[in-house]
């Protein structure tokens, strides 16, 4: 299984020279099995870059199939949707899978609201030319996606929860824990540890530098060390720091990686836009 990070930034897309190495696009991660089956997690602005590449393949001809897992519907995780060009090609079949937001609205209503005429000239999901299915996930649940085995769990994110994913294929496992904050950083919930158990790669929210975290406790995001605790307890083999703060320049992220690496035997790196990894 291969993974490619298309967007690694949290909250807000950041342009400028200070963000070039790690990238300024908001969250989107692609997984591809050895047999070529593809899965996307989250539809931040990073997805628009993947879209350009997909359009050169079967998606440009209306023969693409793609499941997209959403962690939640905060805008930085869905803002690439109206600009994800495979949606505009008739014949493509795109599944969007995610939990209903905690507000009481359904996932489908939320995405319809995103494309409501005030906000978007697309004026609703029904105007996307591709076949689009919206499928509600109710974590904890196992999802059937061709080529992948997907387990989910709800994890705390400020006053709400998001969906975390454990994705296995080709005998390898990736765990996606973005937009998460534990009540006690030193005691992550058992279900989180189960989701990350022996993962070959743990992708974890690292929005805050450790020293910034105290000011933003309760906002729903983690400091880098939270991912270390999960990785160590769960026996994850590698930790990718993810969902970088919009205020974190390349140099600041370098420092976080250095400091975080110094405190653990687990190999740590910061997810960078455009980078490939053979899991």
């Amino acid at each position: 299984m291969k993974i490619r990070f298309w967007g690694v930034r949290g909250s807000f897309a950041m342009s400028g020279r200070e963000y070039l190495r790690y990238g300024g696009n908001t969250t989107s991660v692609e997984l591809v099995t050895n047999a070529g089956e593809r899965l996307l997690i989250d539809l931040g602005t990073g997805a628009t870059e993947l879209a350009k590449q997909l359009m050169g393949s079967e998606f440009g001809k209306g023969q693409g199939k793609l499941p997209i897992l959403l962690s939640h519907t905060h805008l930085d995780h869905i803002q690439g949707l109206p600009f994800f060009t495979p949606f505009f090609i008739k014949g493509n079949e795109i599944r969007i899978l995610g939990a209903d937001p905690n507000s009481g609205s359904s996932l489908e209503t939320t995405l319809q609201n995103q494309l409501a005429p005030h906000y978007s000239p697309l004026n609703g999901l029904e105007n996307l030319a591709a076949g689009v299915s919206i499928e509600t996930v109710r974590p904890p649940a196992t999802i059937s996606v061709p080529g992948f085995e997907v387990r989910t769990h709800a994890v705390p994110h400020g006053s709400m929860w998001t969906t975390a994913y454990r994705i296995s294929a080709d005998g390898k496992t990736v765990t996606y824990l973005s937009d998460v904050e534990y009540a006690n950083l030193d005691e992550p919930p058992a279900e989180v540890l189960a989701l990350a158990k022996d993962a070959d790669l743990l992708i974890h929210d690292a929005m805050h530098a450790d020293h910034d975290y105290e000011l933003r406790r309760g906002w729903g995001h983690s400091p880098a060390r939270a991912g270390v605790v999960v990785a160590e307890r769960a026996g994850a083999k590698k930790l990718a720091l993810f969902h970088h703060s919009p205020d974190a320049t390349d140099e600041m992220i370098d420092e976080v990686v250095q400091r975080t690496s110094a405190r653990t035997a687990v190999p740590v790196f910061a997810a960078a836009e455009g980078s490939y990894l053979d899991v």
Partner: protein
Amino acid sequence: MQITFWGVRGSYPVPGAATVRYGGQTSCVEARSAKGECVIVDAGTGMRALGNKLMREANGPQKYNVLLSHVHWDHIQGLPFFSPAYVPGTRIAIHALLTAADELNSVIGGITRHEFFPMPLESVPAAFDFHQVEPGVEFDLGSFHVTPIALNHPFGSVGYRLDCDGSSWAYVADTAPFDQVIHKQHFLKGPEPLSADDKVSLEAMRDALLRRLEGVDTVVYDTHFLPEEYAKFPHYGHSTPDQALEICAEANVRRLVLYHHAPSHSDEQMDQIAARYLAKGEAVGIEVLTSFEGMTLPIGRKVDAPERTNPGVGPA
């Protein structure tokens, strides 16, 4: 009066190596009077950096006026990330084109619904008030005299002429030209044939725009598309620099600023566009500048080169 561009991109933010000089953030322009009063036009992602700058400058909570052209995401997405909004005592007046101010409240409130953003608008410490603007109905914001102008864009859009300190500039975005397609309150799959009434409406809209722009010093115009791109997507609601030049020439505008760049246009393409339309403008006596993130322009006088916030931005 001077204006500073905080976001010049259309549709969605495009970070990356290809956009470092012209910028990747979406629509947001700051206007300043000689006295230092501030009016913000559009609240795209550029508004985040503007907010951070205003916080550094502010001495206590301030009142900010925000003029919205319309409420598509690329024109409002910066609002929840405008840091002065989190300072108690701040007042933010939002002026926009809509049929009812309470609807405006719910539309703006809608962008911070729980599903999209962690904090609902009613919990944000700043006090918001909403004002409906109507094309042609002028109003004052301190030293600024504001004239809203109807534009041609899906579900409606409004441009603004701002007069202040004896000079004037206008913000004309987002808009399609006024000949091929008319945008109303419905989704356009492609160009639809124009009725006789449509043609009359478009002509009236164009005439009103020309009247309002007559003699304006600087016009910032939606020039999202190159002509060959426009030909493919005439129903997307955006214009080309050629269409903007035609309007500015007819209205005796001194300077045209290209704005709302397509997300696909790289810095190299923008350099080419800037050079091509600088020359085309010279041919008709109009100074044509291409906006970049961080560009500051004094209104009412020619500049040899626009001021840059840092040496790394702008044309090569």
